[in-house]
C-alpha cells in the first residue's frame, strides 16, 4: 500500500511539476483527500487487522526494577506459621459463631494483633451513598472528605487495622496488606483469608529485615470490598478534624471503647497512620474448586478509568506464584470467546500467515499457536473491556485513586475445607507468596516507576505496551481528518467545476452557481447544528441528577422518564434554534462537522481512558464514515446501493448506546434480552463509580450518533428544489 501510495504520489507530483509547486505536505494532503474513500477503507481495515493481531504482538513481561529481586531470599514462612494460622482460624470461627454483629470479630482480630506486640486501631465507616458525580474523576480525591458515622447510625462497618513499625526503619513508607471479610455473613473461605493475613502479619512482626512499615487492614466488606477500603483510605489521606464534641465522640466510638482489654489507660484508640504507601496487596481466598490439578491465583489489577498498577508489581506476583510457589496464575477472561468458532478461524488464518511470514524473515514471530491466540484474545478482550468500563475490578481501585500501586489476588484452592493437611499446605504456599511480595516491595528504595503503567494483558505473563496498542487506534483515527477535509473541499471543487462548466451545461451549473453564493461561510450552519446537538447531549447527561431525586422510582420508570425528557429537550431546542434541515445544511458539510467533532472527542478520550476510546472508535468510526443520506442520489447500481443502505442502517443501530449494552451483555453473559430498566441500571453503575466512560457516552458518542441519524434522514431536497426553481 505504501509503495502504491508513494508511486501515485510521485505520479501526482510529476503532474504538478509545471505549476508553481505547493508544499509537499499540502500536496500529500490534497492527494489523500482526493482518494479519501480508498484511504479510509485501507486505514480502517488495517486498524481492525492490527487490533486482531495484538495477541500475537504481545511480549513477555520482564522485571524492570532490579531492586525487587523476587525470590532471592528463602521464605521464612514455615509450618509453624501455618499452625498459627489454623489456631487463629479456630479462634475466629468460635467468635464468629457466637457473635451477631461484626464487632466481636473485630475485637478478636485486634486482640490477636495486640498480643503480637503490634499497634492496632479501628476504623468505623458508613456505606457510600449513591451520588451522581460524573465529573468526579477530574477533581482530585482531596476534595472528597471522609464520611464519619454520626451518632444515630447503627449500621456501620468496622475495619481493624494492625501496624508493624519496621524495627530500624524510619517510618516514611508503608506496605499495605488487605484481607476483606464480611462481618455479617461469615464464610469459611473468608476466615481462611483472615487466617492467612494474620499468619503473614505475625511473621512480619518478627522480621528483622523490614524497612517499611506494614499495615494490615482486615476490611469489613459488608457494604462491598471497595467501600470499606476506600473509606479507610479516605480517612487516612483526608481526615476530618471537625466533630461535635469529645463526649459525643466517645459515644460514637462506642465500638472503640468496648475494647479496652487490659490497657489501664482506657483512652480511646485514635486512628493510626504509617507513612506514604509504597504498594498494596489485597488477597482473599475464593471458593474452593473441585476440578483442576493446581491451586490457582487470579490477579485483578484494573482500577478506575483504565488506570493500571505498575507492571512490575504484577510481574513480582506472577514470578513468585508460578516459579516459587507453584500456583497457576490466571487473569479474568471473556469465557464466551474461548469457544467461539470465528475466533478460531481467524487464529488459524493468522497462524498460517505467520508461518509464511516467518519463512521470509525469521525475526517476524507472528505465528503463535491457535489455542494461545484464542486465550490471548479472550484475556485481551476482558482487559480492554474492564479498562474501557472505567470501573475498578476490586478494592485495589481505591488505592490507585491515591497513586498507590495495588493488585488483588484471589486464591482458588482445590482442596476440601475439611482436609487439614491440604489446608496447611495451601496456607504455607499462600503465606510464602505474600511474604515474598512484601519482601520484594520492601527492597524498593524508590516507588514503582520503572515499568509500564499503560498496558493490556493478554496472559498473566504477556503484555501489550502502549506503543503497540496505539497503532490500531491511530490507524482508525487517521482517515477522519482527511475525510472531513475531503468532504468540505469536495463541495468547493464541485462548485468550481460547476462554475467552469457553466457555459457548457447550464442546467447543472446554475445550481452550483447559486449554491456558491452562500460562500465559504456555509459551514457555520453545520456548526450550529453541531452546537445544538452538543448542548442537548450536555443536558441529557445531566438529567439523571434530577431523575435520581425522584423518590421510589424503579429503574424502568427512570429510564423512560429520561428518554422522554431527552426527546422533549431535543424538540424544544429545535423549536428554539430551528430544525437542522430548515436552514438548508448540506449533508456533506454536516458529515464533515460530525467527523471533526468525533475525532476531537476520541482524541480527548484517548488521553483520559484509552481503552474506551479504542472500543468507541471501533463502533463510531465505521458508522461515521459510512453515513450517507438514504435519499441521496448516486450513480450506483442497485446492489452496491442496497449494501450501502443496509450497512448504514445496521451501523446506526449498533451505534445506539442501549444496543451496545445489549451486545456487551450478550458477549459477556450470553443472554440476549435486555429490559428498559437495565440501561438505567447500567448508567447508574457508571456514574456511581465516577467513570469517564459515562461522559464519553453522552458527550461524544450520543451526539455523534444523533448527527449520523440526521445525515441518514437528510432529505437532500435543497439541490433538487433549487434545480426545480431554475
Amino acid at each position, binding site marked *: 500500500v505504501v*509503495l*502504491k501510495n508513494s*508511486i501515485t504520489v*510521485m*505520479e501526482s507530483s*510529476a*503532474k504538478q*511539476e*509545471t505549476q*508553481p509547486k505547493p508544499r509537499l505536505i499540502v500536496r500529500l494532503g490534497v492527494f489523500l483527500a482526493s482518494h479519501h474513500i480508498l484511504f479510509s477503507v485501507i486505514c480502517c481495515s488495517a486498524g481492525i487487522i492490527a487490533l486482531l493481531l495484538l495477541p500475537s504482538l504481545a511480549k513477555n513481561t520482564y522485571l524492570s526494577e532490579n531492586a525487587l529481586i523476587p525470590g532471592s531470599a528463602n521464605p521464612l514462612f514455615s509450618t509453624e506459621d501455618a499452625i498459627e494460622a489454623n489456631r487463629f482460624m479456630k479462634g475466629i470461627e468460635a467468635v464468629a459463631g457466637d457473635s451477631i454483629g461484626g464487632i466481636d470479630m473485630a475485637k478478636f482480630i485486634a486482640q490477636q494483633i*495486640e*498480643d*503480637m*506486640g*503490634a499497634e492496632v486501631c479501628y476504623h468505623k465507616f458508613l456505606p457510600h451513598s449513591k451520588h451522581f458525580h460524573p465529573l468526579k474523576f477530574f477533581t*482530585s*480525591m*482531596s476534595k472528597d472528605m471522609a464520611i464519619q458515622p454520626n451518632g444515630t447510625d447503627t449500621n456501620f462497618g468496622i475495619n481493624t487495622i494492625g501496624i508493624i*513499625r519496621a*524495627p*530500624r*526503619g*524510619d*517510618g*516514611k*513508607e508503608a506496605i499495605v496488606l488487605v484481607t476483606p471479610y464480611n462481618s455479617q455473613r461469615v464464610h469459611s473461605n473468608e476466615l481462611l483469608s483472615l487466617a492467612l493475613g494474620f499468619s503473614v502479619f*505475625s511473621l512480619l*512482626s*518478627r522480621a*528483622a529485615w523490614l524497612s517499611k512499615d506494614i499495615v494490615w487492614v482486615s476490611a469489613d466488606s459488608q457494604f462491598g470490598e471497595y467501600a470499606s477500603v476506600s473509606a479507610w483510605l479516605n480517612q487516612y*489521606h*483526608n*481526615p476530618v*478534624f*471537625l*466533630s*461535635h*464534641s*469529645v463526649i459525643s*465522640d466517645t459515644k460514637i466510638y462506642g465500638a472503640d471503647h468496648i475494647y479496652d482489654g*487490659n490497657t*489501664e*489507660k482506657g*483512652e480511646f484508640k*485514635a486512628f493510626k*497512620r504509617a*507513612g*506514604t504507601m509504597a504498594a498494596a496487596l489485597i488477597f482473599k481466598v475464593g471458593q474452593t474448586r473441585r476440578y483442576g490439578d493446581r491451586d490457582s491465583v487470579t490477579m485483578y489489577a484494573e482500577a478506575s478509568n483504565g488506570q493500571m498498577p505498575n507492571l512490575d508489581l504484577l510481574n513480582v506476583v506472577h514470578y513468585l506464584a508460578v516459579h516459587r510457589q507453584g500456583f497457576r496464575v490466571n487473569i479474568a477472561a471473556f469465557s464466551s470467546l474461548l469457544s467461539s468458532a470465528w475466533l478460531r478461524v481467524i487464529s488459524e488464518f493468522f497462524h498460517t500467515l505467520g508461518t*509464511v511470514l516467518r*519463512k*521470509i*524473515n*525469521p525475526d517476524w514471530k507472528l505465528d503463535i499457536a491457535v489455542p494461545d491466540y484464542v486465550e490471548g484474545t479472550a484475556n485481551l478482550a476482558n482487559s480492554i473491556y474492564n479498562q474501557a468500563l472505567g470501573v475498578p475490578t476490586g478494592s485495589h481501585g481505591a488505592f490507585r*485513586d*491515591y*497513586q498507590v500501586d495495588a493488585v488483588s489476588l484471589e486464591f482458588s484452592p482445590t482442596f476440601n475445607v475439611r482436609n487439614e493437611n491440604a489446608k496447611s499446605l495451601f496456607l504455607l504456599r499462600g503465606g510464602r507468596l505474600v511474604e515474598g511480595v512484601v519482601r520484594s516491595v520492601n527492597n524498593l*528504595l*524508590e*516507588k514503582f*516507576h520503572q515499568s509500564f503503567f499503560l498496558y493490556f494483558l493478554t496472559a498473566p505473563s504477556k503484555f501489550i505496551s502502549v506503543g503497540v496498542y496505539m497503532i490500531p487506534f491511530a490507524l482508525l483515527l487517521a482517515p477522519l481528518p482527511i475525510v472531513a477535509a475531503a468532504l468540505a473541499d469536495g463541495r468547493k471543487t464541485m462548485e468550481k467545476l460547476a462554475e467552469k462548466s457553466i457555459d457548457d451545461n447550464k442546467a447543472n451549473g446554475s445550481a452550483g452557481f447559486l449554491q456558491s453564493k452562500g460562500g465559504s461561510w456555509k459551514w457555520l450552519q453545520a456548526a450550529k447544528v453541531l452546537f445544538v446537538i452538543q448542548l442537548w447531549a450536555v443536558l441529557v447527561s445531566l438529567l439523571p441528577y434530577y431523575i435520581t431525586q425522584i423518590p421510589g422510582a424503579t429503574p424502568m420508570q427512570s429510564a423512560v422518564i429520561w428518554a422522554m425528557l431527552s426527546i422533549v429537550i431535543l424538540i424544544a431546542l429545535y423549536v428554539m434554534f430551528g430544525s437542522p434541515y430548515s436552514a438548508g445544511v448540506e449533508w456533506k458539510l454536516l458529515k464533515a462537522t460530525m467527523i471533526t467533532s468525533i475525532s476531537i472527542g476520541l482524541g480527548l478520550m484517548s488521553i483520559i481512558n484509552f481503552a474506551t476510546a479504542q472500543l468507541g472508535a471501533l463502533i463510531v468510526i465505521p458508522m461515521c464514515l459510512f453515513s450517507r443520506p438514504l435519499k441521496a442520489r448516486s450513480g450506483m447500481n442497485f446492489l452496491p446501493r442496497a449494501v450501502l443502505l443496509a450497512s448504514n442502517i445496521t451501523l446506526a443501530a449498533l451505534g445506539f448506546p442501549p444496543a451496545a449494552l445489549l451486545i456487551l451483555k450478550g458477549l459477556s453473559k450470553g443472554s440476549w434480552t435486555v429490559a428498559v430498566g437495565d440501561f438505567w441500571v447500567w448508567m447508574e453503575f457508571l456514574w456511581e463509580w465516577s467513570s469517564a466512560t459515562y461522559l464519553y457516552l453522552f458527550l461524544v458518542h450520543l451526539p455523534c450518533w444523533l448527527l449520523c441519524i440526521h445525515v441518514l434522514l437528510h432529505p437532500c431536497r435543497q439541490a433538487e428544489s433549487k434545480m426545480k426553481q431554475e
Partner: protein
Amino acid sequence: MARPPPPAGPILFPSLLLPFLIATAAAASAAANEEFTEELLLRPLPDRKALAHFYFRSSAPPAASIGRHHHLFPKAISQLVKKYHISELELSFTQGRWNYEQWGGFDPMSTSNAKPPGVELWAVFDLPLSEIDATWKNLTHTLSGLFCASINFLESSTSFSAPRWGFKLNEGNLRYGALPREAVCTENLTPWLKLLPCRDKAGIASLLYRPSIYKGYYHSQKLKLRSSQSLGIILDQTLTVVLQPNTISGKQVQSNHGQLQPSWSMRHLFNRKLSEKCFVSKSSRIFIEVDKGIVDKVNKSGSDLSWNNEFFVLSNGPDRLIKDLNNLEVQSSSIYEYDVSNYTEENPFDVGITWKLPLIWSCTPSPFHASRFLMGSGNERGSIALSFMSTNLHKKKFGSTNDCSIKAVIFQIVPWYVKVYYHSLEIFINGNQKPVSEVVDKIHVTPSEDKLLPGTLEMVLRFPCSMQSATLTLDFDKGFLHIDEYPPDANQGFDIPSALVSFPEFTSARNYPEIDPLLGSPLLENFQEDSVVKSYTEVLLVPLTTPDFSMPYNVITFTCTVLALYFGSLLNALRRRIGEEERELKKTGKLIIEFLFLENSNPHLTSLNSTAVTRHGLIPQLLAKLRGQKVDPTELGSSSESIGSKKLLFKVVFVAVAAVLFHYFSTNS
C-alpha cells in the same frame, strides 16, 4: 614541625626522643586536669526490650593552661573547637525511631537522647553574626570528613536554618540542620570510637560488638561539645541502643501479658564480656535503672526495693542504690550502681536481670503525644497535619484542675520545594476549629525562598488542660526542581525533617538527694540537669513530580525535532519569495527549450555549448527532456505519461515479488 630534616646518624635518636619528652612533660602538667569517665546505663523496657546507654565524657581544661597538646582529650575535637569558635555543638546519628509511647517520653533518656532518624547537627558559635554562616559551612565539611558521613550536604543554605527560640534560646548564633535520609552504620561508629582514649579495646566501649548493637530497634550515637573559657572543653559521647534480648527458648514471644519479661544479662545483650576498665578513665560505672512503674509495683506489693525482690533479681549485688525523689518526695525510679574498676580479665564483670513474676508497667509519657502526617494525594498540593493526643499527664501532675493551660513549642523546618502557606494554619481542638489567635501565643515564621532558604516555623501554643486532641494543619504546594537538583533515587520522594515539639513547663530532671556531688558521675549529673520535655515527630516523605531520568535521549530528540521543524518553516517563510521562484521556473523552462531547440537546429553552436552539456551529465539531460516533453502537452499528453508510470509500477511490483519469492524459497530450502 618547621624544624629542618635531621641528618642521618647519631642526631636521629634525640630527634625521635624530643617529641616524646615534650609529650610526657605536657602530660605531667595537665594530667590532673584532663579527665575521662565511662558509664553504661541499662534499663528494661515495658515492651520486652532493653535499653543500653553508653556515656563517655572527656574533658580538657581551658586552652591556656595546657597549650596545644593533649593527654586524653582527642586532638581533632579540640582543634575543631578552637578553629570554629564553637561554644556548643551536638551531632547525632540515629537509626530507627524512638517509641515515645512504650519507651517513655518524660525521662532524661527520651528528652535528651531520643533523636530524629538520620543526622541532626546544631552548633552555637562564639563569633560575630556575619561570620557564622561561613563558619558553619566549614564546620559541616570538617565533621563530614571526621565522621565519614555526608554532613557536608548541610552546607547549602537550603538545608540549615537559624532558629531563635523554637529550638533553643539563643542570640542568633545557633545553626540547625538535619539530614533525615543519612544511613548510619559502623563507618560512622569507628571514627566516633577513635575519639575515646581506649577506643573499643578496653573498658565499657569493648562491649560494642557491632552485630549485636546494630541489630537493635533504635541506635543513636551522639557527640556533644561544650566549650567556654572557664570550663575548657567538655566532650560527651553517648550511644543509646534499644535491644531485643534473646530469650532462652529461642522464639521471641510477643505477648505482653501473662508471661515473664525476658531475663537478660550484659553478656546476652552484647555478646561480649566486660573484663576490665579503661585504665585512663577516672571512673568506670554500670547502672541498672528500674522505671517508676516497676518501683511503684514493688512498693505496692509491700516488699523492699532491694536487688533481690519479689519481682526480679539482679545477678550481682549492687555497690549502691540511688533513688530518684521528685518534688513531692515520692520515689520515682531507682538506679543500682556497679563499679567495674575492681574486675579483671580473669574475673569479668557481668550483670543481668532475672524476672520472677510477670510484670506490666508503662513509662511516663510526655504531656501530649505528638505525631505528624501528610494529607491529600497527588503531585500538586497537600497538607501537613500535626496532631496532639493528650496523655492526661497534667491530671497526675497538677491534680484534676481543668482550667489550666499547657504550653507547647513547635519548631519545624520545611525544605523550599514544599511551599507551605503559613496563613492557612488551622487549629482544631477537640474537634472544633479555634481561631489561631486564641491558641497561638507567639509565632515566628521565616518563609522559604526558592533554592535559597528553607522555611522555618517557630510557634508557642497554649492548650487548655481539658483538651483531649488537637490538630494543626498547614497547606502546601509542591514545587518543581531543576533536573540537576534532584538527588539520587529521586523517585523515592523528598523528606521533611522531623519537627520538634517541646513542653517548656515540664522538665524531666531527676533528683538524687542522696548522691554525693563529689561522686563525679557525668551521666547522673546529666540526668539531674533541667531539661525540657521534648519529642521529635516522624519524618515525612513527600512524593514530588519527577522527570523520567532514563529518557534524556527521547527528550533531546523530541525537542530537536520540534526546534528543527519550527526554524525550518520559519526560515522558509521568511526568505522564500514565491513570485520570483515562479519567474525563475518559467525562465529555466524557456532556456531549456531554447537550448534544445538550438541544439537540434544549429549544429555549429553545439561545440560552443558542449562544455555545458558534459558538465550537466546524463540525468539533467533526461530531466530536461522530460520537462521539454511536458511543456509541450499537445502531442504526447497524459496517456504516454500514465503508460510510463504504469510500466514503472509494474516493474517495481515485479521486482518486489521476485525478491520476496527468492527470499521465501532460499530460506525454505
